[in-house]
Every structure is written in C-alpha cells, then in structure tokens.
C-alpha cells in the first residue's frame, strides 16, 4: 500500500495536498469546536463541577450525575419519555404528510408555483425563536378550548373521533392519530424542506415508466406502490434523518429547555452534561437504528 502511495503521480499528490488544504477549516473547526467540547462534556458528565472564585474544579464522581438525572430529578425522565415518543409520532406524521403533499404538488395544475411557495414559507418564517413563541401562545390555546366548548356537536373531527373511539379497536393508536391531526398545523410547519426534497425526487422519475405501466394495465394506485414508492425510497431516508434531527433541535423542545435551565440558571454543569448526553445517545441510537432499517429497503435505480 505504501509503495503504491509513493508511486502516486506528482499531480495526484499535489491534488491530495490541496484537497486537505481546502477542507482544513473544517478539520480544525471540527476538532477544536466539536470533538474537544464533546469529550470535555462527556468527562464533565462524570464529574462534580464547581464554579467558584473564577475557577472550574472538576472532581470525579462516577455515574452520580446519571443517577441524579434518572432517579432524583423529578422532571427529567418524564420529559425524556414524552419528548422521544413525541419525536417518533411526529416524525412519522411529517414524512407521511410531506410525501402526500409532494404527490399532489407533482401534478399539473394552475398556481402550482404559488402553492409550493406557500408550503415552503414556514422554513423561512418559523425558524429559531419564532417556533417557540408560536407554540407557547396561551391566547390561541385558550381560544381553541373555548371554541371547542361552545361549538360542541358541530365539529366534524370530534364526531369522527367519537365514532372511532367507540369502535374499540386500537384506541391508543387512534389517540396518537387524533393528537397529530389536532396539531396538523405544527406538522405542516415542519415539513417545508421535506416536501421540496420529495418533489425533486418525484420529478426525476421519467414519465415513460408510468406510460409503460399504464399500457400494461396498471392502475394509478398500483403504479404509486410499484413505481413511485421504490423510486423515491432514497428520499425517504434523507427526509427521515433530516426530520428527526430537525425535531430534536427545535427551540420548543422540552428536554433542551430543561437542560438549559439546569445549566444556565442552576449552574450545574455536570448534571446538564449528563442529561444532554443521555438525550444525545438516545436520539443517535434512534436515528441509527431506524435509518438502518430504512436503508435496507431503499432501492437504487442505477
């Protein structure tokens, strides 16, 4: 191997060096601002960190912080379970919703560009601090409650929910679905980028495939599952990872809020690090396992 490397032509060697020069800002930034803090916070999560008189003293305390997070802190485990289950349900809902919208937007009709622009609007407008503000809007929540109370019996969704509830099959699964439908606004806000990615995937499928299927007597429904689905399956992977990651970085995330409260208000760096590591490992494991499962089913055309 080393012999081969020595034999590399001059140009190739020069290109390798300049390649490294080009990505050097990233390497430096990655090592200094990501890996070092990451290792440090991992170390801190096993330490008792004291901030006194302008110095940091770290005394090794084993897994005390992790025990604290799981067994002493009254909120953390509850928030963690809530947030992770919310992440699973919502990511799934966002993927389904954005695929559906992309399918509609892929058809020919007047004003398609306008609709696409409107669906992408939340990516620009509901970012950063604005997301947190919208979901904390007490007035809207109060209003929704009063409206629900006063218009009882008129609401179509409530009637449907009642019918499905009394059907008695898989009530708990239904409850999740109802929750998502009630919060469809949040789902629509979070799916701007996913719609565009699906749409670009749909547009790469050549129409000749559909024509051939049509001539062979394939219905639209069949060609959706036999052509569209496999052809955009790689987009599902991209979108799934993006959605999950995006979801756990949102500023209205309860676990993140809790961590920041512990870190900045209570100055307990050790506990905060332990909490964020638990969350990080959970999310990473979730992303890893699910994307492994999805990538097994991804079909690459070429």
């Amino acid at each position, binding site marked *: 191997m080393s012999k081969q490397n020595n034999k590399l032509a001059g*140009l190739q060697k020069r*290109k*390798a060096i*300049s*390649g*490294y020069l*080009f*990505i050097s*800002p*990233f*390497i*430096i*930034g*990655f090592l*200094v*601002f*990501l890996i070092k*803090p990451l290792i*440090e*916070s991992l170390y*801190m999560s096993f330490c008792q960190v004291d901030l006194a008189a302008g110095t*940091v003293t770290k005394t090794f305390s084993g897994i005390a912080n992790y025990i604290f997070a799981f067994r002493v802190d009254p909120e953390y485990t509850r928030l963690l379970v809530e947030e992770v289950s919310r992440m699973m349900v919502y990511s799934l809902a966002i993927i389904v919703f954005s695929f559906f*919208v992309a399918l509609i937007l892929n*058809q020919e*009709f007047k004003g398609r560009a306008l609709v696409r*622009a*409107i*669906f*992408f609007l939340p*990516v*620009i*407008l509901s*970012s*950063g*601090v*604005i997301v*947190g*503000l*919208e979901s904390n809007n007490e*007035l809207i929540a*109060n209003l929704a409650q009063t409206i629900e109370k006063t218009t009882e019996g008129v609401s179509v969704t409530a009637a449907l929910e009642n019918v499905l509830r009394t059907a008695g099959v898989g009530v708990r699964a239904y409850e999740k679905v109802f929750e998502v439908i009630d919060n469809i*606004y949040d789902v*629509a806000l979070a799916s701007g980028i996913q719609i*565009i*990615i699906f749409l*670009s*995937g749909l*547009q790469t499928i050549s129409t000749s495939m559909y024509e051939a299927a049509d001539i062979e007597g394939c219905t639209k429904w069949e060609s959706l599952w036999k052509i569209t689905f496999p052809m955009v399956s790689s*987009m599902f*992977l*991209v979108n799934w990872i993006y959605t999950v990651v995006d979801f*756990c*970085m949102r500023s209205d995330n309860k676990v993140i809020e809790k961590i920041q409260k512990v*870190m900045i208000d209570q100055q307990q*760096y050790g506990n*905060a690090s332990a909490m*964020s590591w638990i969350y*990080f490992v959970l999310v*990473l494991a979730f*992303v890893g396992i699910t994307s492994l499962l999805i990538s097994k089913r991804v079909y690459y055309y070429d």
Partner: protein
Amino acid sequence: MTNAEALVSYKKMSFWERNKLSGGYLLKKKALERAVSIVRFILLFGMCFMILQPIFNKISVSFMTEQDLYNPIVISIPVHPTTANYRLAAELMNFKTAVVNSLLISITIALLQIAMCTLVGYGFARFNFPLKKFWFACVLLVILIPPQTIASSLHLHFRYFDILGLCKLITGATINLRGSKLPYYLMSAGCMGLKNGLYIYMIRQYFRNIPGDLEEAAYVDGCGTLKTFLVIMLPQAKPILTSCFLFAFVWQWTDGFYSRMFLGSTKLVSTGLSRIVDSLGAYIQRINGVKTTISIAYSNCILATGTLIIIVPLIVIYLFAQRAFVESISSTGIKM
C-alpha cells in the same frame, strides 16, 4: 378520409357527439378529472390557509387597540385602527440598535460561514485524498449532533478561553470570551456555526454536478488549484452560493440558541423578541409604579406585532428569492 380530415371533422363535433362515439368513456373521464381537480383545490386551499392564517391574524391583531381586543364584535378588522402597537413593540425591542446589530452580525456571519463552507464543499467535491470518506462522515456527524449537547462545555470553553495554554503562560490568566462576539466568529470560521454541516453538504452536491472539463482545461493550461477554484469554479456556483447565503442570513436572523449563548449582551432582534413579554411587564411597571399583571390578550398582541416586525424583512427576501431557496434544496436530495 385522411387522418388530418378526420381530426378536423372530429373537432367540429360537439362534446356529446364525441362522447357518444367513445361510448360514454369521454364523459366519465372528464367528470373524473374535474372531480379530482376540485378535491385537490379544496385540500390545497385548506392547507395553504392553515399556513397563512396565523400571519393574517397577526397583521389584523397588530393594528387593534386594547379596546378592540376585548370587543367580541371585532374579529379581524379593527374599529379603532392604530399603529401604537408597532411603536411600543419597536421601543421594547430597542428596535433601532437591534436591527443594526442583527443586520451586521447576520451578514458578516453568513458571509464568513458560506465562504468557509464553499472551500470545504469544493474540497470534498473535487479532490481525492486519503481518509476522504472519514472526513465526510464527520460532516454528516456535524449535521447530526445537536449543538445543545456540547453547549455546557462550549460555555466553559469560552469562559476560560486559552490557545493551547499559551495565554496562561504569558499573562498568567485565561481570557474570558463570554459576552464578546469573537467566539461565534471563530466557530463560523471553523464551519461549526448554525447548520453549517448542511451548507457544506449542499455546496458539495452542487459542485459534484458541474462537469469537470473546464477545470481540467485550466489545469492543463497551468492554472493553480486555488486560482482555478476562484476564477473558474466560483462564478459557476453563484446560484447555490446566493441561496446558501440567504439561508444562513435568514436562520441567523431568527436564531435564538447561538445568539443567547454567544451574543447574550448584544441586543438582537431575535433575543429581543423572545424577551418582549417580560420587557412589556417591566415597561408597564415603570409607568404605573406598581407591579401589574398584563392581560394575556394584550401581551399577545404586542408579541404578534413584534413577530411581524421581525418577519417582514424575511418575507420581502422570500418574495424576491423564492426560486433560489426552493431550487437549492431540491438539488441536494438527488443523490446521497
């Protein structure tokens, strides 16, 4: 009868005659098409309305006086239209200084981030070097790691900043960089700012799709790597660079996490907005002299006005550069 004649005579027939010829198939098909388009219209109209309605609602609320807010007859058009809310919201956010600060920081940060990400993206797209796959996996890792995980140690890192222990050796103490803007610029220079992994990925995808002939011609003519990049490749990448710049600008403009962490002392529109309800309370207390609880309706009205003030520039940018935003995203997902 030739084909052309048949077509002409066919076109002269009325719809019903043609329908009869096709044995009812034409009518069925037309009706189905019409039904699909009506259903599609209702669905899309509903969803678009759902997305736009909060913005319209904010606009109407922002022009209402407090009196109108409690008036059950007033729904969307205020009886006593006023711009006082805008004045108050702007004052509470320290609007003038905040806008100047935010503009300066967002533009410089976005420029720096995109410059660095372009270099790195180009490096990944066009050069072969050992461990390339490993470093690219690191880029994906950057996209995956939530910055909140490392927040606590970054916090300390910059509180007691030191370059390999040099400062301590010379001055005897570490530098406190908390509250200054330098750390964030340093992080941006190292491609570790807000969503920078994503920009690297997008720019790399774009460069990979440009054919390499021009570049090779330049090399053959004796142009160096850097010069080829600056003179030949950069002009071709203008679309992706502008859209990445716009994304960086917009996301930096509304960002709360990095701003609160690194730029806490600087007045920005985003942090001003997240604090607006508290500052409203403080403001009213200062006027009245006693602590009063503000009604939810009024504080929400001010919040809506503040949000509008912040997003108006973004809406203007979006109106002009809508294509740039959408197309840059659609070019990323094509191939992993």
